[in-house]
């Protein structure tokens, strides 16, 4: 390894190292931005209280409510309809903790409340060159900005609150090159599922993935976030995409982004972040974007994927067989055509404006199948407002879908939004584990376009079939 050629990861690591690691002790890594939510923080605040410690840098902590919050409107008395008393208590506890420790909370009354990984970027709090953590594994999302961002446990949430630092060993570096052009009717979601299928659900364990190549450069910020979001599903510690003009254009003018002279200084710093030419990685792999097809999951982890029309592969072992049984999926037959009960458009993977637009485009002027219930849950209040300003809510409503309040909703199904046992859900979220969307629920991961097409058809369907009809109509 050439000493003076550094990767993006090297630069991020070096510039945040308070103390270098040794054989016997991990390094101390400084954290620039700490995102918190109601589920993984209460025990950390308790720990601080027990030890009589303050939050060291409340100015570096951002809190929001997302996981256990209802997505239904408030009742006539303005009360939030929580799934149970515990969920309400958890939200209330975060409100108390933030007040007592001086942490900024984007709570019920904030115009910026939303899924933690949607609001960070949206506020411009997520910036290139930062270290970002959250007690949530999909913190990898923020890597789309060239920030080192990863999920931590609650004990570590306490460490960061108390010291603004973490004990860490440097992960290995894995360059994933994707060259060429993504075919029409495919998106970052298809690419993500395609890549996880290739490298496996444990293929990234111990690594930070750096996505490189022309296909990555061509993605807009929302698509980059979708891709980085899913990298934890390959077991990766974090994901990175080098910041470029697309990144800077997205950030400029956002509420928490630097302004004026500070912006120029930041820009100079950000431009120096990408990996040096010739810097070396622990592992590299190349992919051709042209090989990506509309891709969905058919099993019970995000590595069991297939394209819409390809026959589902035969199970390779007992567990895959069990997964097919759980999913009521037959090998040898394609997934397309399988009856669908529920469609969920949302989650930190696919709940941004671009995702909603992509789905709405297919739904406009059509009705979803009568057997299907479709939930559309915007990622944040800001996304919700923007979508409403464009009339997307009307498109969804007119199509027969439910337009909900922002939150995690059916991605994790702990707020009362969930599928019944045995129901098949086409979901734009990130995990299809057994029971993730409710006990016995069967989840098929897909892009917003496939989700919308499936809602219309009442079975797993190809967006192409509706897109074509649309073009013909127009002609």
């Amino acid at each position, binding site marked *: 390894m050439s000493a003076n050629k550094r990767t993006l990861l090297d630069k991020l690591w070096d510039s945040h190292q*308070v*103390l270098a690691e040794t*054989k*016997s*002790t*991990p390094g*101390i890594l*400084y954290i620039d931005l700490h995102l918190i939510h109601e*589920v*993984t923080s*209460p*025990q950390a605040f*308790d*720990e601080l209280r027990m030890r009589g410690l303050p939050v060291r840098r409340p100015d570096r902590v951002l809190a929001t409510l997302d*996981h*256990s919050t209802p997505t239904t409107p408030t009742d006539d008395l303005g009360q939030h309809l929580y*799934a*149970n008393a*515990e*969920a309400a*208590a*958890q939200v209330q*506890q975060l409100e108390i903790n933030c007040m007592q420790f001086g942490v900024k909370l984007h709570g019920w009354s904030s115009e910026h409340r939303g899924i933690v990984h949607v609001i960070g970027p949206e506020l411009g709090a997520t910036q290139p060159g930062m270290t970002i953590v959250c*007690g*949530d*594994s999909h*913190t990898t999302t923020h890597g789309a900005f060239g920030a080192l961002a990863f*999920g*931590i*446990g*609650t*004990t*570590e949430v*306490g*460490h960061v609150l*108390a*010291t*603004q*630092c973490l*004990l860490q*060993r440097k992960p290995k570096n894995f360059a994933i090159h994707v060259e060429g052009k993504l075919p029409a009717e495919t998106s970052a979601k298809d690419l993500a599922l395609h890549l996880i299928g290739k490298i496996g*659900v*444990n293929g990234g*364990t*111990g690594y930070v993935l750096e996505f490189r190549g022309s296909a990555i450069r061509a993605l807009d910020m929302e698509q980059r976030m979708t891709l980085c979001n899913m990298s934890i599903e390959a*077991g990766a*510690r974090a994901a990175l995409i080098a910041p470029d003009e697309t990144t800077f254009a997205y950030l400029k003018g956002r509420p928490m982004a630097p302004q004026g002279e500070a912006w120029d200084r930041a820009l100079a710093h950000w431009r120096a972040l990408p990996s040096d030419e010739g810097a070396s990685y622990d592992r590299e792999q190349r992919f051709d974007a042209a090989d990506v097809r509309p891709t969905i999951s058919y099993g019970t*982890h995000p590595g069991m994927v297939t394209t819409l029309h390809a026959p589902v592969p035969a199970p390779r*072992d007992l*567990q895959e067989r069990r997964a097919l049984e759980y999913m009521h999926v037959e090998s040898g037959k394609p997934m397309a055509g399988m009856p669908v009960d529920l469609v969920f458009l949302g989650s930190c993977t696919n709940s941004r404006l671009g995702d909603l637009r992509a789905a709405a485009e297919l739904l406009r002027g059509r009705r979803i199948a009568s057997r299907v219930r479709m939930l559309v849950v915007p990622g944040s209040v800001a996304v919700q407002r923007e979508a409403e300003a464009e009339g997307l809510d009307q498109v969804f409503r007119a199509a027969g879908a439910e337009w909900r309040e922002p939150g995690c909703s059916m991605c*994790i*199904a*702990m707020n009362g939004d969930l599928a019944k046992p045995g129901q098949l859900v086409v979901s734009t979220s990130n*995990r299809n*584990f*057994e*029971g*993730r969307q409710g*006990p*016995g629920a069967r989840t098929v991961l897909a892009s917003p376009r496939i989700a919308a097409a499936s809602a219309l058809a009442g079975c797993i369907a190809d967006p192409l079939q509706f897109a074509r009809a649309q073009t013909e109509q127009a002609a």
Partner: protein
Amino acid sequence: MKPFTRLHSCTAVLAHENIDTDRIIPARFLTTTGREGLGRHAFHDWRYQADGSPDPDFPLNHPAAQGCEILVAGRNFGCGSSREHAPWALLDYGIRAVLSSEIADIFRSNALRNGLLAVVLGEAEHRYLLKHPHIELAIDIAAGTIELPDGGRFRFEIDAFARHCLLQGVDQLGFLQQHAPQIAAFENQRGAHA
């Protein structure tokens, strides 16, 4: 954390690969603000039948698995979310060590921080333990050895610092706090950016 040096117990085996954190503790049990009592939800949807009675097919419900503090699990155990409720639930259930050929990053670090020994074994050793459930093992953390009933021995490695913390019962937050001067110096040196 109490020092943890040795463990002598029987093994319970969950041979399934990719056991994710939603299986270890389903999300609907995460609405708690404490960390106690999560053991009753460990592997909830796998462990109980629809009527709430224990599912006899779930390997940990097997009579021979009762009281076993060592869980031998299939490859890539603990993948999925960062919820520390997963190791909390396992510890409260009575598991003190998890052995697999691969353990997901965040789960492993959460486990070790809570005094749940998470050990990655070589393929051959792992296969042996999967094939021989309910055997007595003696785990010596300082020596990095697992002794089998027949006197055979497996060696294992864990991160030196994690081992030190287990053996001494080190409080990692305390350790970080000792470096407060370095942290302050780092912030100062970064000046306006920090």
